């Protein structure tokens, strides 16, 4: 019998379960992980350096491209930071719209995570179901901003425009007959809020469907229970936030503990796990989807009853209404200055964070009074999570590496920035 030494294996950068471009160097003893060394930076675009060379408004669309499955939450953190530096007030309706879209984003993110996680662990069908529901929410994104993913809808001072009065309809096409068309447009007859409300009524059944497939599934439990356990003290020490921290039993959620936007007015629960293994992280995220659905319903209700402005009337920060620009010289000058030179932001430094679906997404911004940020640091939740990969994977089998990596909800847009 020959002596078997440890050997090193490359996982990625092109691996279907690497969730993008991760090169993971694994040192193995047989099939057991001795050391995992993630090599990141393959998607490094130096967003922070680019931000130093662009005006505050030009930087906004870059935020979508960081964590490209929770686009509007990133924009929210950026807008909060700029607003804090400027000291502008955001209209209440805009805050509710932001809350609504943050939660829609959370559902979008968790659906993608759930589908991809199930796929990584070996359950194909969940992926298809999750993408069915994502489609409806992407349509909402499209209706409000014109883009299905990179919305650029939040602006410093509010949101770009009010919600549309009519949900866009499917148009006749040679590929679908009249019956199918009526069926597709069935819940799109009213406003966008009607469509979202219809979605919130349907969604709990959908979550039940995923749970039927997974929660008590014997194979699912074998793959996730007791895998990648992190205790509460260790999770805090490792800088975990979001569902990763809550699954370890720490009840910390910025929406509740340091509320922003309209979260202080809304009624929702914070799901907390017990053991801090992959299964608990799954349960926490599924419970979060149900809670998000409740928040969405409450926001829809409030937004129906309370019309009002959706962006600040401080024209040094936000553009004047287009009608005004046709007649008022001053409005035209404001518009021109905003889109050529950009807004001047007072000197100072701020840190603003939101509870993004993956954890605490923060923007640390230093301004020296110029029309561009002097330094912008993006605090991505996935970064410390992936840093804990070595610790979480040690002693597990190769197959568990995929389960652990996937449970962190890794997206390289935000980790590499």
């Amino acid at each position, binding site marked *: 019998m020959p002596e078997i030494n440890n050997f090193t294996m490359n996982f990625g950068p092109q691996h279907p379960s690497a969730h993008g471009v991760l090169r993971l160097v694994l040192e193995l003893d047989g099939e057991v992980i001795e050391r995992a060394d993630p090599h990141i930076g393959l998607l490094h675009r130096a967003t922070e*350096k680019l931000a130093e060379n662009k005006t505050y408004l*030009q930087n906004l669309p870059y935020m979508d491209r960081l964590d490209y499955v929770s686009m509007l939450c990133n924009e929210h953190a950026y807008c909060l930071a700029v607003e804090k530096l400027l000291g502008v007030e955001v209209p209440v309706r805009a805050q509710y719209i932001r809350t609504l879209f943050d939660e829609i984003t959370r559902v979008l993110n968790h659906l993608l995570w759930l589908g991809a996680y199930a796929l990584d662990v070996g359950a194909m069908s969940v992926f298809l179901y999750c993408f069915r529901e994502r489609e409806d929410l992407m349509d909402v994104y499209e209706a409000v901003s014109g883009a299905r993913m990179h919305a650029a809808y939040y602006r410093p001072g509010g949101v770009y425009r009010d919600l549309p009065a009519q949900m866009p309809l499917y148009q006749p096409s040679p590929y679908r007959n009249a019956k199918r068309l009526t069926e597709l447009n069935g819940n799109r007859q009213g406003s966008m809020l009607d469509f979202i409300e219809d979605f919130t009524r349907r969604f709990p059944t959908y979550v039940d469907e995923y749970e039927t497939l997974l929660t008590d599934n014997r194979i699912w439990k074998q793959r996730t229970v007791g895998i990648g356990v992190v205790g509460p003290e260790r999770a805090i020490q490792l*800088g975990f936030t979001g569902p990763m921290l809550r699954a370890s039993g720490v009840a910390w959620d910025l929406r509740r503990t340091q509320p922003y936007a309209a979260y202080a007015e809304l009624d929702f629960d914070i799901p907390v796990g017990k053991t801090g293994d992959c299964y608990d992280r799954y349960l926490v995220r599924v419970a979060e989807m149900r809670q998000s659905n409740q928040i969405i319903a409450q926001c829809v209700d409030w937004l129906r009853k309370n019309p009002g402005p959706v962006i600040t009337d401080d024209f040094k920060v936000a553009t004047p209404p287009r009608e005004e620009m046709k007649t008022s010289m001053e409005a035209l000058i404001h518009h021109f200055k905003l889109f050529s030179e*950009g807004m001047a932001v007072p000197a*100072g430094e*701020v840190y603003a964070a939101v509870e993004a679906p993956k954890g605490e997404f923060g923007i640390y911004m*230093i301004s*020296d009074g*110029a029309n*561009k940020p002097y330094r912008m640091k993006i605090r991505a939740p996935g970064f410390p999570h992936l840093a804990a990969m070595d610790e979480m994977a040690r002693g597990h089998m190769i197959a568990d590496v995929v389960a652990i990596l996937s449970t962190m909800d890794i997206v390289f847009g935000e980790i590499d920035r």
Partner: protein
Amino acid sequence: MTDALENLRQYLGAALGETLRNARMDRGELTVELSREGFLAACLRLRDDADCAFDLLVDVCGVDYVDYGDGLWEGPRFAVVYHLLSLKHRQRLRVRIFADDDLPIVPSVVDIWAAANWFEREAFDLYGILFDGHPDLRRILTDYGFVGYPFRKDFPLVGTVEMRYDADQGRVVYEPTRTEERVVVPRIIREEEEGRYNARN
């Protein structure tokens, strides 16, 4: 919230003594500047003292102040900024420590907050700030074999090298970049009192 931070500011003034250079409140956020002597002891105090309890290290980042205010900056060039969070008191604290210009080196806090590991590697990679006592100070985000510290203000935005496939050699080659830097919107700081402004790239 702000009152609690004001109390914390008073408390830190007494607790940290000489190590605390200054503590400022701005826009409802507390920033303390610590000296390098006694920095680690002060960090340990911030984590373990029941009145501080900053148990979660949210972020560590490097800052290059060389161009700040277009030449107004007089202090040291490099700083490391730590963002701390106390889950118990629901408070945040920003800690800043300056490093020397020639050989920027600060003590590593990996032993106090394990989360600092990758954040410090990142600050080293992008700014060339060294962390004394870090167990594994390798580059993290830039390419294998990368030269220079890309986030320093004197590093060009377009970079120094570009990469292409060379058919003759049958491999990918690196060459000095031919891309020219283009400024669409100049950087402007308006000086309100004088009604004039200075434009710079």
